[in-house]
């Protein structure tokens, strides 16, 4: 997670505007395996359904299954893993001394901004593959986010060392809260 300033600036998409007095602390990227795991599970389910459908389809209509099988077994994996790479590369998570910016650029753009003083909970989620490869999802929860869907829709997903990220955010939240209490 140690980025030099130039690396950080290069990694920040042009749609994200950093205020002059704002300091960028971390720029995080999504891990491809975090997407590939979900995509593989989805594909296995789809392959299973296709195989079942091929066997249960009446013999006079079985010819219809051939183009579907070609698509599901050959075309779809290339699309899912290929487009998935671009999807993963479109994610950027910028943590500054004032806020967290969660950015996704893939076909469209989705960006969530949350200031540290509004964070009420931080949830870290790791699946079995995530534990193995040391990546996970860090969800900064605010009073405005409706749980559980709010957290699932846009979080810091698939980042390396999620507990370090959680600790860094928790530290910033604590600093801001104590500053507010003093002020």
């Amino acid at each position, binding site marked *: 997670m140690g980025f030099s300033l130039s690396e950080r600036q290069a990694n920040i998409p042009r749609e994200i505007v950093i205020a002059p007095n704002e300091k960028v602390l971390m720029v995080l990227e999504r891990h491809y395996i975090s997407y590939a795991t979900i995509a593989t599970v989805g594909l296995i389910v789809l392959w299973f359904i296709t195989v079942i459908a091929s066997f249960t389809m009446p013999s006079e209509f079985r010819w219809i299954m051939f183009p579907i099988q070609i698509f599901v077994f050959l075309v779809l994996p290339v699309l899912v893993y290929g487009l998935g790479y671009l999807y993963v590369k479109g994610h950027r998570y910028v943590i500054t001394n004032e806020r967290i910016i969660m950015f996704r650029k893939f076909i469209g753009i989705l960006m969530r*901004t949350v200031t540290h003083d509004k964070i009420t909970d931080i949830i870290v989620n790791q699946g079995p593959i995530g534990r193995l490869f040391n990546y996970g999802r860090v969800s900064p929860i605010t009073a*405005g986010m409706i749980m559980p869907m709010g957290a699932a829709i846009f979080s810091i997903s698939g980042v390396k060392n999620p507990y370090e990220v959680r600790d860094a955010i928790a530290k910033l939240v604590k600093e801001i809260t104590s500053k507010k209490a003093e002020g």
Partner: protein
Amino acid sequence: MELARKYVSLLPDERILATLRRRYPSIFSSILSTIAAAFLIYWWSMFRYIIQYSGLITEVLFTLLYAVIAIIAFIFILMALVGYLYVEGHLYIPTDKRIILLRKFITVSVRELAYSEITDIIVSQGPLARWLNYGSIIPLSPGG
């Protein structure tokens, strides 16, 4: 500003920073999504129809093509008329104290949100929105 005068009352020391209107193309991305969803739902029926009359496949395909074109044209004409009034009914007024979001279309809805209550800001742009440079900004508060 007629809308604002009727439904919004400013505080004595409040200053309007800008008045924003919804852009007309923004309604078309919603229409396209609706058409795509309707098309997907109808897909299975069409598929079965083609199989049933596979001997007359060209005739069936052309009938379906005409039907789809007619439906799309109808929805576009309808949305062009209704959508214009819908879009014109939107007004967003950021002041130095709060954001006022006003929508007048059949019913009237006014939401006022103080900056101090904003917990998250979500910016969303679809592909068409990126091309035409518009988008949605969703300020979230503990109220929803």
